[in-house]
Each structure stands twice: as C-alpha cells, then as structure tokens.
C-alpha cells in the first residue's frame, strides 16, 4: 500500500519518544501483546515500532523495545497502527421509538429480501411519520407515500426534524433516561465497533428544552458489561430543535388546544423555559411553592437540583452563534458548568467560549458543509470550525453523531485532517478529550499502563482512506477481528 506521509506526520515521527512508559511486563495466562509500526497513545504521542502489553484486561506496558512475555498472545499487523478505542461523546443511537424493525408478517421473507437493506439505515426514521412506505424508501427519491424528500442514508442532525424519540408530554424531562430507549442489540453498535469506536455517550434527542440524561455505553463485549453509566449528563437544547423536532409544538391558534400546544414555539421561549425550570427548581429546593405556566414536574426538579449542585453534569446543544451565546448567558445566570454540543458555528464565537472555558463536542462535519442543504441551523457550517477551536485552545472532542455508515467517527477524523487539524489534535479529540469530558478518563481514552485495554489495531495508519480497524479489543478481550477477512 502506497502511503505518502504528510509533513505533520513526519514531524510526529521525528518527535516520537522511543519509549513512553516502561513497566516490567508481567507474564500471565491472559497476556496479549500488540505489535505495530505506530502506537498512537491518544495523548498525541506516537511510539514507532511499539508494543502494547495487556494483562488481565488492563494495559501493563506501552513502548518500543519491550520484550514479549512468555506465553503471550501476539497480535502483529505488519505496517499497521494502534490507537486507543475511539470515544464518541455525542452519539445519536438508533431512535428506538422510530426504529423500523421489519414486522414479521406472512410476506416477511420477501419483505426482508427487498427492504431490509434500507431499514438498517436511519432513513426510515427520517420520514418520521412512520408512513407505511417507510421501509421502501429508495435513496435519492422522495417517499412515495408521504413525500418526505430524498432520504439519503446520512442525514445531518437537524435535518431529520420530524422524527423524535423524546417524551412529548413536557419540555423539561431531565428525569428521563436515554438508556430506556437504547436498544443495546441495535446493529448501530456493531457498526460503531467495526469503525473502531469502543465507548459512546448516547445522547438525548433534542426535542425538548431540558431533555433526557444520556448514557455511557460500550459498543461491544458481554451484554451485562455494556452499560458504563446509566444516567449521565442532562442535555439542554438551545435553538429551534425543541419546538421543531418531533411533533412540533403548536400555538393554540385558531385550533383546539391540544397536547402540543405549549411553549416554546420560539427561541425566546426556549431560554425562558430553561430559566423557569431552574428558577422553580431553586424554589422547590427551598420548600417554596412553585407554579404557573411551564412549571416542571417534581421528578424533573429532583434531577435539576442535582444539576444545579453539579452532581449531574450539563451539556447544552447549540449550533448557531446566537444559540451558543444564549447558552453562555444562561450558564452565567445560574452559575452552571457545561459542555457545548455540536457547536456548528463555534468558529464565530471562539473568544467567548474560551473566556467561559467551555469545552466543545464538535461535529459532525461534512466535506461540503450541510449548510448547502436544507436545514437553517446548519447554514453557518464551515470547514475550518474544528481547526478554529483547536487553534483557540478550546478543549474539543469530535463526534460523528448519527453518522455510522462504514467509518463514522474515523471519517470525522479524516475530515478534520483534510481540513487542516494536526494529527495529534485529531487523535486527542476522539480519545483522550472525550474520555475526559465524559469523566471516564481514569479507565479509557489513552494507552497507558493501568488503563482498561480498549485498543484498536488498524490495517494502516489511523484515519486514512485506505485503512480500517482490523482488531478491536474491549477490556482486553477481542471483540472484532477482521484479520482473516
């Protein structure tokens, strides 16, 4: 395979430290040694002709010139590279309530043969109306039943505005948990795994102002060990998603007041609902009465009070500059720490983000920004956003969100590289940084002694168009092996 290395790779190669960590390799019955031309530790450093020694599910040594312990299983991919298991800190996993599982009817066999390929893509969900033709969407054509436009398999978040898995009965639902609608058996996880992603934060659907608590899950390994944290950060949403996604909020305008006639129907309303929820939570915490329009439910306030004390972390999804600034204003008003999600226009307010010391989980990005397609919130997308964030010294993780086809997060890394982010920064943005932002950096995110052995072995350099994960280990266990295929 012909692979010229770009200048920054060469620089890394030169700067690579011969041995990063020398810990005496312990021999054990369960020792695995991974040899590789390049070991990327996730901190940005690279060990040439390095080796990763894994004992009992944990990394015991990383470095060059280590001796192979006796009896160890050796994984040696000539010319390949090794990275930590990738971490997607904002993964939108299969919207289960919209999940189109082919119903096993009398004609199900035929149905499977002709339709199942499409159903495995998120396209059925983007129709959202669950129309009877949902399974028969053909790429590039409008839905023949409901007319939903061209359902290409990879739609940007925000484009898919009709579907929602969020609870519709309220705008403040932080007491709900995303894990309850995550299907751990979803093929999404297989796909994430085959793209080298080992840990994900499953993010809530942005259809409510204060929406559900996300979950941190592993993408492979025994089912019983999959869930790392059942209820993690609460997600707040700025912008138009809370009232446009899912069955959209309506005004009682010349029609009966129905279930969806509620605030917000505007950006003004979004911030108000946020403020009102936190204000009521504060009062509730002091034993004072709460009431009036937009009062959250008691279980919601229980969770929000934990959020106010910092016990439950907060993430805010904001795409446009004005929404990011709204988030910063609200955080200031209530003295909240938060992580910014998506940040499509973050390049337009790097100063403000840096001043507020807000980390960003940026993405997904495209070759041509999605702004050239039909979503208003993504109009401001630019190719240099990630670079601008990195250059501004803002802690940035990269996410593929709902893009899982073939090489999801690795592809995001490819895009970042192509658009001028240095390899070490890209590497950190999908390993070390998301681990830190998810507070799982004590276990995963880097290849260092003592860490859990989540390792990806690539057929070539990581994030190259000609390279793919050959072996993936989670907790020192091989969960994916494509060496023979």
């Amino acid at each position: 395979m012909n692979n010229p290395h770009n200048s920054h790779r060469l620089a890394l190669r030169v700067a690579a430290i011969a041995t990063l960590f020398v810990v005496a390799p312990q021999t054990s019955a369960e020792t695995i040694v991974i040899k590789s031309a390049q070991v990327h530790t996730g901190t940005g450093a690279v060990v040439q002709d390095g080796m990763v020694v894994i004992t009992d599910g944990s990394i015991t040594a990383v470095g060059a010139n280590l001796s192979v312990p006796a009896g160890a299983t050796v994984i040696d991919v000539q010319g390949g590279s090794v990275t930590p298991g990738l971490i997607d800190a904002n993964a939108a996993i299969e919207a289960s309530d919209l999940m189109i599982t082919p119903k096993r009817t009398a004609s199900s066999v035929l149905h499977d043969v002709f339709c199942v390929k499409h159903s495995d893509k998120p396209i059925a969900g983007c129709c959202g109306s669950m129309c009877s033709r949902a399974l028969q969407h053909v790429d590039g054509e409008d839905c023949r039943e409901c007319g939903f436009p061209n359902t290409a398999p990879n739609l940007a978040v925000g484009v898919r505005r009709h579907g929602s898995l969020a609870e519709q009965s309220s705008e403040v639902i932080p007491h709900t948990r995303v894990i309850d609608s995550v299907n751990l058996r979803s093929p999404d996880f297989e796909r994430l795994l085959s793209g080298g992603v080992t840990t994900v934060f499953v993010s809530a659907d942005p259809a409510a102002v204060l929406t559900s608590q996300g979950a941190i899950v592993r993408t492979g390994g025994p089912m019983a060990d999959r869930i790392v944290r059942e209820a993690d950060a609460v997600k707040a949403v700025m912008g138009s998603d809370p009232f446009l996604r899912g069955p959209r909020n309506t005004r009682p305008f010349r029609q009966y007041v129905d279930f969806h006639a509620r605030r917000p129907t505007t950006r003004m309303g979004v911030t108000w609902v946020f403020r009102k929820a936190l204000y009521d939570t504060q009062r509730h915490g002091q034993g004072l009465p709460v009431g009036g329009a937009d009062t959250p439910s008691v279980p919601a306030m229980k969770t929000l009070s934990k959020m106010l004390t910092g016990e439950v972390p907060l993430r805010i999804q904001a795409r446009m500059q004005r929404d990011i600034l709204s988030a910063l204003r609200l955080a200031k008003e209530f003295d909240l720490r938060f992580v910014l999600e998506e940040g499509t226009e973050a390049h337009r307010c790097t100063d403000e983000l840096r001043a507020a010391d807000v980390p960003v989980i940026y993405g997904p990005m495209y070759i041509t920004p999605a702004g050239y397609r039909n979503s208003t919130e993504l109009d401001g997308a630019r190719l240099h956003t990630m670079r601008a964030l990195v250059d501004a010294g803002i802690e940035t993780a990269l996410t593929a969100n709902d893009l899982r086809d073939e090489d999801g997060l690795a592809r995001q890394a490819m895009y970042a590289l192509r658009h001028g982010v240095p390899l070490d920064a890209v590497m950190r943005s999908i390993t070390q940084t998301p681990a830190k932002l998810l507070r799982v950096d004590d276990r995963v995110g880097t290849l260092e002694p003592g860490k859990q052995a989540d390792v990806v072995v690539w057929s070539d350099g990581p994030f190259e168009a000609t390279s793919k994960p050959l072996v993936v280990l989670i907790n020192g266990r091989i969960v994916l092996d494509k060496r023979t295929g």
Partner: protein
Amino acid sequence: MIRLSRSLLILLSVASCASASAQKPDAIMAGRYVAPDGTIKTDTAIVLDRGKIHVTVARDVYTKTDNIVAYPNAVVCPGLIDVRSRIGAHDNLTETAHAIDPAASAIDSLDLTHRDFRAAVEAGITAVMLSPTENNLVSGVAATVKTARVSGDDPVLRGDGPLMFAVGSTVFSEDRAPTSRIGSAAMLREALDEAKAGRGHERMRLFSAGSLEGLVVCEDPMDVSAALRTLANGRPSIAIVHTSDAHDLAPELARGSRAVVVGPYAFGMSPRTLSTAGVYAAAGVPVVFAGGTPEASVGSLRTTAALAVRYGMDSAKARRAMTVLPATLAGVSERVGAIHPGLDADLVVFSDDPLRLDARVLDVYIKGVRVYHADVRADQTTGETP
C-alpha cells in the same frame, strides 16, 4: 349487574346439570393422559370425588365398573388455560385516562353469559385469564375464570391478580403522558419509588412488597430489557408477555422473570419468532402459551403449541405451557391446571395428543361434570362410553 349475571349463570348451570347428571362419572379410565410433568402416560384411572380429582391410580388398580367413563385410545388432558384472553369482556378492558391505573379490575368487565365461552369450552379451554388492555403502564389487575360452570361452583378462580404492566409502544399516547419509552420508564420508576415509600395505590404497594405478582406486556426485545431493569427489582416477581424474538435474552429471562408468555403463533410467521419458545424453554424459562381468544380463534392455543414444537420446543414443555404453567402464572395452580389429586376435575379428552392438530376434542369436564360431548359418528369415535 355482575352479581345479577352471575346468579343468572348459576340458574342456567343448575338446569343443565340436572339433565347431565348421567355425565358425572366417578372415575375416568384413560388410555393415555397428560401427566403434570407434561409427558403422556398410559392406562390410568382418574378417580373423581365431588368435582375434584381424588387420586390417579393405575388402570388395573381401580376395579369399580359402575359410573365410569373409559377412553382406551384417547388422551385425557387437564383443561387448557388461555392467559391472554378477553372472552366476555373484550370491549370493556381499555381504560385510557391515566397511564398508571392500578385500581382497575378486569373482573368488573366480565360478562359470564357471553357466547364466546361456549366456543372456548368446545376447543378444550376450561379457564381464561382476562387482563386489562396494555395501553397503560399499569392497567389494573387480571382475573381468571372458568369458561363453564357446574352447580355450586364459583366460576371465578381469581379476581385480584396479577397486576398488569406494559412498557412498550402500546402505552404511548398522543394526548397524555407518556409518549415515549424514556417517558414510560421514568413514570414507572417514579410510581414504583412512591410505592416503595408507602405511598400510592395499595396494589402498587403490594407489588412493590412482593405480595402481588406482576405481568408485563413487552413489545420489543428492548422492552423486555427495560422491564427486567425497572420492574424485576432483583427478584423474579414478574412474568413477561413477549411474542417477538429476544433470543439472546433467554438467560436474563430465566434469572429475572417467573415466566414468559408467548403467542399466539400463526402459520407464516418468521421462523425466528416461532423458534423463540423453544429457545426460552431450553434456557430454563417457564414458557406459557397465549391463545389470544376471542380475537384469535379458539384453536390458536393448540396451534401455537404445535408450531412451537415444530420449531424446536420440547413436547412435554409445550403441554405444560398450555396447562399447568398458565395456572401457575395466573396464581390458580392450587385449583386447576393439572391432573393431580386435590385439583378441580377440569379435563379435556382429546382423540390424540393435543399437540397434534388433527386431534379433536371429544369430551370436556368441568368439576367432573361433562359439559361438552362431541357429536361424532361411531366410526370416528375413539372414546367409548359404556
């Protein structure tokens, strides 16, 4: 109203008993019978006493000859029980106002005079469990009733349980909470927390304390996971109703649930779904078949069992899944469900193994009284009466 209909039934059944007194044998001589372990055993005398099974002995041990019925070639089976039935109440089991509605009772909707009961009897179903529709997270308690009655017998086997839950998309509504899986789980968690703290409806508190069992209707495999996570609560106090194909959940179900209800099955369903019963049973999960009467035909309970066996289930387990296990699930196993001393003599006589779809129902006994006799031509008769 209910009381009125019940007394009406009593009057009717008394009248029918008088005419059928000849059909009230002291013993039934069975060439073959379905034993409590589900296997088919041979040559037994089932001795009846005041409507109950007194004892089962080898055929040659029982020497009396008067007032016995002998079925030398037929199979005597405990009355079949359908745990997913809405016979006699099917329009009246859906309450939509509140997602958590433990106060509802299926028994309040029961119409014992409904003609569907007769059809069930003729198909060999002697008891059904009626449950409130699964459109609520907690939809009330189920009731188990016999499909026919004889004099002096209360057809209601149980009216206060188990408590019905549902966690799948059947619960979601467009005009009340919850509308989603995450909302369902959160509401349920909140309600259970309340119950645990001693607040809320009594039935929820009983469930929380483990003295009232639950039955959870699940749609997707992930609903099963959710049910186990939120409701099982560390001890198997719930049974799961789930007809889809959660093969890989079998070990979890074996640990976390009392039983799993599957069915009704139909020809043309995917092999994967049809093999689920066998997979669960092999993993040690007590499997119970659902017939789904009256929406499904009264024969669907046996079709379900036959298909499950066709797709790999053990036959003995399949027979138990129509008789003793549903009785256990409904909490009425001390009354019905097996040919076992002390239980009601609710028996069905099949012309052959009930798992064979060509086996016909010949006679049906409730409380030892024959309530149905197939009017068949002599050359087709395999059972005989002296």
